[in-house]
């Protein structure tokens, strides 16, 4: 089975330069800070926010990874053949976001290398983090295998299909577990809930679709008329619908989540008042509304530039949403009495921003590298 060669026409060169440059700079600064001050250069603390911005970055990137894997699976698993146009790219991006996410997590952890042997050696099967790790590892391996198959032109042999199917299952389970890692925390009511994994999946699909839209435009340029037909029709058809629908659902979720937080008097939810008073929150909400407006307006949704803007807005919104959720769940002090007055004050430190930057720039750099070396625009010939 042959593959279609397709030259990228988007600003991939610029992306390559900026992402590699950004990666090197953020990694350099982050490592320098961590070498000299350790995690004391984070603004996290035992008294307040234990998991800071790098964990938000990890969660955001992992969610996006699952979302991308699901977008890829629309063709490989669910038979929506038009998605083949972006399947290879999305599979690669799913790998890239996962690697980026894990990198920022590793820089956040005390002993990331110890994790490599300590988790498998001890088999703590009641920890959601254990299963999250297991499923993400499986997902990563399967995604790489699947990508390899696609790269070799094997798009839907039974073996390839099986690998693809399993990788999607692993991704869903992994992100579900990540959601459960928060949702199971009954001691943190702002996080608690059995449907949290579902909301993570919804956020994942939204971010995944958004990233797919953005990446496709980055790869092919914003002029949709110059795109290959299959790609253009996907961007104006199925993917646009998926993206719009997911964004609408996600906005509804954020709205109801916020509303119930504001309405309830339950301990821990008082943090919602603080959250809605931050600009971040409104950046997210307005971004979602504007993106929806763009995508629902027939004149604009077929405009590549506008689609790109919408997807970027949605990505920022999902990131902000994860920030509000993860940080917000930690702002009510855990039995600190007068030591912590009111809610915890937290703003990420420079090092935390750098670690976040490492994850995001690494993802983008891998994307750019993949685009250059791995022919991500390929699709089955038939």
């Amino acid at each position, binding site marked *: 089975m042959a593959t279609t060669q397709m030259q990228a026409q988007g600003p991939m060169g610029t992306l390559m330069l900026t992402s590699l440059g950004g990666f090197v700079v953020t990694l350099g600064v982050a490592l320098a800070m961590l070498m000299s001050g350790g995690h004391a250069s984070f603004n996290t603390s035992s008294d307040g926010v234990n998991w800071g911005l790098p964990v938000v970055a990890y969660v955001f990137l992992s969610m996006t990874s699952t979302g991308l894997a699901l977008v890829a699976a629309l063709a490989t698993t669910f038979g929506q053949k038009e998605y083949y146009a972006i399947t290879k790219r999305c599979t690669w991006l799913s790998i890239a976001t996962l690697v980026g996410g894990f990198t920022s997590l590793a820089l956040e952890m005390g002993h990331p290398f110890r994790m490599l042997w300590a988790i498998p050696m001890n088999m703590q099967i009641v920890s959601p983090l254990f299963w999250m790790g297991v499923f993400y590892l499986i997902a990563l391996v399967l995604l790489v295998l699947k990508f390899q198959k696609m790269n070799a032109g094997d798009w839907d042999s039974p073996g390839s299909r099986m690998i693809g199917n399993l990788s999607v299952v692993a991704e869903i389970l992994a992100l579900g577990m990540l959601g459960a890692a928060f949702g199971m925390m009954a001691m943190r009511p702002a996080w608690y809930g059995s449907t949290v994994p579902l909301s993570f999946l919804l956020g994942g699909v939204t971010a995944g679709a958004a990233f797919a839209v953005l990446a496709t435009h980055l790869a092919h340029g914003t002029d949709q008329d110059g795109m290959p037909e299959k790609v253009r029709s996907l961007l104006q058809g199925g993917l646009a619908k998926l993206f719009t629908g997911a964004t609408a659902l996600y906005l509804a979720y954020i709205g109801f989540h916020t509303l119930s937080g504001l309405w309830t008097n339950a301990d821990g939810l008082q943090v919602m008042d603080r959250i809605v008073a931050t600009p971040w929150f409104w950046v997210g909400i307005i971004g979602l509304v504007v993106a929806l407006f763009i995508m629902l307006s027939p004149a604009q949704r077929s405009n590549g530039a506008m689609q790109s803007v919408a997807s970027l807005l949605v990505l920022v919104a999902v990131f902000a949403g994860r920030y509000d959720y993860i940080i917000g769940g930690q702002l009510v002090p855990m039995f600190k009495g*007068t*030591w*912590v007055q009111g809610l915890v004050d937290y703003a990420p430190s420079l090092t935390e921003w750098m670690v976040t930057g490492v994850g995001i720039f690494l993802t983008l750099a891998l994307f750019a590298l993949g685009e250059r070396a791995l022919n991500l625009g390929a699709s089955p010939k038939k």
Partner: protein
Amino acid sequence: MKILDAKISRRRFLQATGATGAAGAAGIGAGKLAGFNALSEAKAAAPASAGNTVVTKSICAQCPARCGIDVYTTDGRVHAIYGNDGHPIANGKLCPKGHLGTYILYDPDRFKGPMKRTNSAKGRDQDPKFVPISWDEAFKTVADRLNALRDKGESHRFALLFGRGWGASDVGVNIVPFGGLYGSPNVPIGHSSMCSDGSVLAKQCTDGNASYSSYDYRNANYLLIFGANFLESFRPYNNNLQVWGHIRGEKSPKTRVTYVDVHMNQTAAASDRALLLKPGTDGALALAIAHVMLTEGLWDRNFVGDFKDGVNQFKSGQSLDPASFNEKWVKGLIEWWNIELKDRTPKWAAGVTTLNERDILATAREFGTTRPAIALFERGAHTHSNGVLNGMAIHSLNALVGSLFAEGGLAYQMGPAYGAPPAKDGDYQDDYAKNGPWKSQPRIDLKGHPDGYLMAKNMMQEIAKNHLAGKPYKLDTVMFYMTNPVFSSPGAKDWEEFLKQVFVIDTSPFPGETAVMADLVLPDNTYLERWQDAPTYPFQGWPLAQIRVPAIKPLYDTKTFADVLIGIGGRIKGPTGEYYKKLESAENIVRHLAKGFEANPGDNGVKDFDSWVKAGVWYKKPYHWRQVRGEFFEWDGKGWNKKMTEAEVKDKLLKTPSGKFEFKSGYLEKNADWVASKTGRDKAKLVFPYWEEPKYTGGGDLHFVTPKTSMHAEGRSANIPNAIPLQHPTAGGRKQALAEIHPSVAKAKGIRDGDRIRIKSALGEIYAVARVTELTRPDTVVLPFEFGHWAWGRWAKDRGSHVDAVIANQSDRISGMASYYTGKVSVEKA
């Protein structure tokens, strides 16, 4: 710390490294090892896993309570301190300060050995440029100065100021004889007027005992506490906490407690009733309680006496015939009623104190009907211009309920059965000591002088002022032991000027404000490194004495203050030198004191030096006297069986001119002319506990109260990083103490919680961080003292607010007690 950057000799360096472990070798070549830094920061050797742990008996030094402690040392490292479970005050327990000892011992800012100043310019910002000297040179320098003064007939111009004075010998050597032998009225001058002399004088004026009381809390059913923060700072703190657990959680019936203070604190919160009154008005509340007890007939007739016809004739506002009442162990009740008490109704007191009349009445009725009851008070009530009057009024309540010397009441402390010291100072006085010109000189603080404070015990806070004015004269050389008035005295700024003009010898092991101004630093050992004895602070009456055994050899080239004084004394010309040579050392003194136990073995079997060292404490129960239903009895070896005559009671217990508890104070009567002339008080009234408005200083619109909190380890906490976050827990002061400000004040001044604020008085201004809280009164700012040092170590320096910089140097004319809590300030957003 740049200003005290002194070099260190190689010998001292090696000694220090031997003590703290293997020091980094980099320091040696650098040649810039300072007295303050580098050494103890050197990496300490990892402890051996299975070391030999030695437990040494010692005495805590973080408050005057003198708890016996067990000091745990493993492989030369002191790593834990717990209460000595054989010690009657500690009972194996400690207060929060007790555990801080290791941080004090290993304070990286400690002085490492004696040093002299080489920069003749003095001041806050002047680097003294200390250089290390030998102890021999140090002693010689001081002795030469003192000998020269004596030769000129000016020995009175040497003063030795001490802080935590625990009686005659508890600095390791009795420092009193030095003054008499050398010839200076200013050796020593204690800090008691900046501590708690208000209560001492209040008691002297009423029951004739110039002392703090011992208390039998465990048997009391009611405690009425005025400004003595029982659960945060009142001593013996550790034992108070134990008492609290007993009387509130174990004892049947549970003891009821009413607590009086100016802001909500732990004691107020834990009590049954908190009365948060206007600062300085405690006396008004006590007078109203007395008024109710009399009008409602709640006084103890066995102790106080009764109307001749047995019918209560006390009616508000109505005078009585003194002859109508038979007084038993009290004097002047009806006169007091007529001149003062009859008008002191709860309604009146409510107006003065801002309390609710209902609560005053309820308190009086409870206190008057629940026996045994104790009314106790300390600094909160008496650090005001009217302090002794407040104290007398409160202490009078004890007479009204008959709790003096009673079970469940209060009494006074007996001394230990010590042996004779190695030498008797009387045998070593030369002619100069007996008849030298110093004999006619007043004390520099004008204590006991009609121009100063005739009735006071000490007047340390007056020294700087008097010296600067040259009245009565100027000092030449001043030595400090465990006191740092340039930081802690009201009007502290005067002291900086004073210390510039005199030769200053500091003995603190820590780089305090005095050291910055010092010409000579002779660093003391910390308490875990020295020999010392200490008779008990007033506790439960029966005698008790504890011993401090070094848990570890001095880490550095420092010396126990007792040995410093002996070293200097031994170099004073004439018989004084002989006396100090005979004393030999602190350890020798302690050995001699222990000989007294041979004839009087303690209840715990301590009968000599060795058994004392092993147990850490000698004590002998019981307290020898007891008042039961208006009769006094003495211990006869088996019980309180020997009934005492009035003369015996006067001699041993109620040491007033009348031998009674005097509502009409004979002691004040004797000095009435002087008091009237100095205070403008009505001569007829001033002998009674009566209400006088406190004279608030500073000129602001808010009272400024600076309480001691539970973590105040005799001033040391400011440089203990582990103590700082716990210093002001009720308000959440994590990095420093916070200024408690009522929301109404905050609103009026536009101050938000956490804002930096300026606190201003007539003396100047300080900065603080505001805690907007309902803990404090709307008319009061509360800011615990401790911080605001401009020296004192890396963690203390420039942290928090120096409260004493804005508190005026005003004292109660009778007790000489500095009016620390009487200042007024204004606040604004900084």
